[in-house]
């Protein structure tokens, strides 16, 4: 089965000024370092990793919300080369929703105005079809009409995320980047939003880049998963392949650390507890970036930088031993 590629990024790199040690000379921190990802139309790519691994920065770079370099082909156009006016109309097609949905809504505008603004920005449904469209959009995300006159602070967390999704949908995008979009919600509400996202994907043929630290949620919603560590993708595969047969030692450790709500499964699981913390991204280890915490690292890991290579069909990993 072949699927149409919607977005593909090659060699995506985002650098920030930073310091290796306090008071050291300012240096360049590569928060994202040569990332290649592909998102297929109508599918969800999960991007997982721990805090500071660069997963959110990757998402922002695809939208050109920060200064990234590399190639981002979206539907045949390189987003990185677009002039500002063209970029703005292109942004209609890629949307983003955030972890703190309430903070992503202007506190001084009503819900109705916020959605109307999105339509305004791209001159969609002007005139008489405006109000019906706003109503239709609210219905799409399961929010009653009377909420149109409310302000963001009057919403619960789940409602605010629905409105943020609604606003993204208003401009009829092809791709929505979900940046920890359900991480702040209680499980019961989280499940509501996850189901909503899946429904919308089915109905509208949307693609998602689902950025999260929660592997259970990512497994649930993604078709493919990429695992990031310190600015690099270390493993990438279709979801079931990655979760059932993880090959990179980091992925293995990560998966073994996720708790499962089942006492017997928990008791029986073999746990790989990684030693130490994430290294300072301004001063990453030589060679393989994971080697300082890796249970199978050897001396050659310090010398050779492993590249992401295909280990079986559609499954690639960046480790010298796989």
């Amino acid at each position, binding site marked *: 089965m072949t699927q149409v590629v919607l977005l593909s990024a090659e060699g995506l790199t985002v650098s920030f000024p930073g310091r290796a040690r306090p008071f050291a000379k300012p240096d360049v921190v590569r928060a994202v370092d040569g990332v290649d990802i592909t998102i297929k139309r109508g599918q969800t790519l999960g991007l997982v990793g721990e805090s500071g691994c660069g997963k959110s920065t990757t998402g922002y770079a695809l939208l050109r919300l920060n200064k990234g370099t590399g190639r981002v082909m979206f539907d045949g156009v390189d987003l990185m080369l677009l002039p500002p006016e063209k970029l703005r109309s292109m942004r209609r097609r890629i949307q983003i929703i955030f972890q703190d949905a309430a903070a992503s809504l202007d506190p001084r505008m009503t819900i109705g105005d916020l959605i109307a603004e999105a339509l305004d920005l791209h001159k969609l449904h002007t005139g008489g079809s405006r109000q019906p469209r706003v109503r239709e959009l609210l219905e799409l995300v399961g929010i009653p009409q009377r909420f149109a006159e409310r302000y963001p602070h009057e919403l*619960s967390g789940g409602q605010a995320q629905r409105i943020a999704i609604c606003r993204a949908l208003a401009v009829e995008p092809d791709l929505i980047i979900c940046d920890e979009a359900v991480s702040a919600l209680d499980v019961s509400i989280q499940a*509501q939003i996850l189901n909503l996202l899946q429904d919308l994907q089915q109905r509208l043929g949307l693609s998602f880049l689902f950025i999260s*630290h929660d592997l*259970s949620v990512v497994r649930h919603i993604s078709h493919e998963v990429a695992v990031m560590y310190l600015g690099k993708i270390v493993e990438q595969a279709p979801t079931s392949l990655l979760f059932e047969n993880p090959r990179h030692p980091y992925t293995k450790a990560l998966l073994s650390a996720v708790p499962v709500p089942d006492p017997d499964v928990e008791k029986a699981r073999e746990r790989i507890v990684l030693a130490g913390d994430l290294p300072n991204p301004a001063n990453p280890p030589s060679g393989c970036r994971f080697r300082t915490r890796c249970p199978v690292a050897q001396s050659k890991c310090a010398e050779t930088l492993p590249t992401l290579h295909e280990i079986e069909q559609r499954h690639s990993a960046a480790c010298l031993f796989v």
Partner: protein
Amino acid sequence: MPLLTVKNLRTRFSTDRGTVRAVDGVSFELEEGEVMGLVGESGSGKSITAMSIMRLIKEPPGRIEADEITFDGVDLLALTPAQLRDYRARHISMIFQDPMRSLNPVLTIGRQLMETLQRHLRMSARDARRRSIELLEVVGIPRAEKRLDEYPHQFSGGMRQRVMIAIALSCNPRLLIADEATTALDVTIQAQIIDLIRRLRSEMGTAVIWISHDLGLVAGLCDKVSVMYAGRIVESGPVREVFYRPAHGYTLGLMNCTPRVDDIGHRLRPIEGMPPNLAEPMPLCPFLPRCEMAVAACRESKPRLETIAEGHVASCHANLSAYWRKEKVA
């Protein structure tokens, strides 16, 4: 005799919207060396329960009432504020979600550790320092001697939480209350902390109340679990009992809406609606408006806690046995 007995704990807050019953009749017992999970969603009253036992609630606007709170035979409700402070330091310790805010940013880690030891155990400065280094080693902080003289901002999130645990353990408490202690941490760091808690419990016999919204953590760590909803314990029992034979609509709902990393494919069943307003009187089951399992009796009377099996109680009119994993529980 249990280490901790709580009977009919009620904590209320007077607000301009009326009296909020944050905790409404919570009872449980905890044995020496036992780990109890307290699960529920935000606003269910799990943190308030813990803070009420520690009497860390500001009164007013809060108001704590209980038929009994005894710790090791001592009535905590009868203690003077000074005695209570001593108890909190020496016998019951608490760690919170945000270790940065619990540490004083302008004092070194060593100072903060030693202070507790010197004040409550009357140790000399030298002994306190030696003991502090030991404690940091116990919680797995490398180069402890050196790091003692560093400030909180020089530690990572996981390391800070270890420091908090070291401070909490400094007086060998018999009960440790952990309130979402690993929620802000990455999973690999969380695994390290869980490992540490397991070790403490087996080596030092510390009893733990583990407050979390994460069912997975509770399943792996706890001996028993209490599920809270709208300020009450709606179900409690041994972990395997509750997970394999859930007897309350809310417990079942929670399990059905939690995605599992070892499981793929089926659609989550969200719990529709939102938690009730705790300022409202609730003559019926508080979960009724959101419950998929509700039966006719639910609309007539409030269910009482009833025994399902040895140590397993739930307050639910519905019969959920069709959803039980019978192969797991005899």
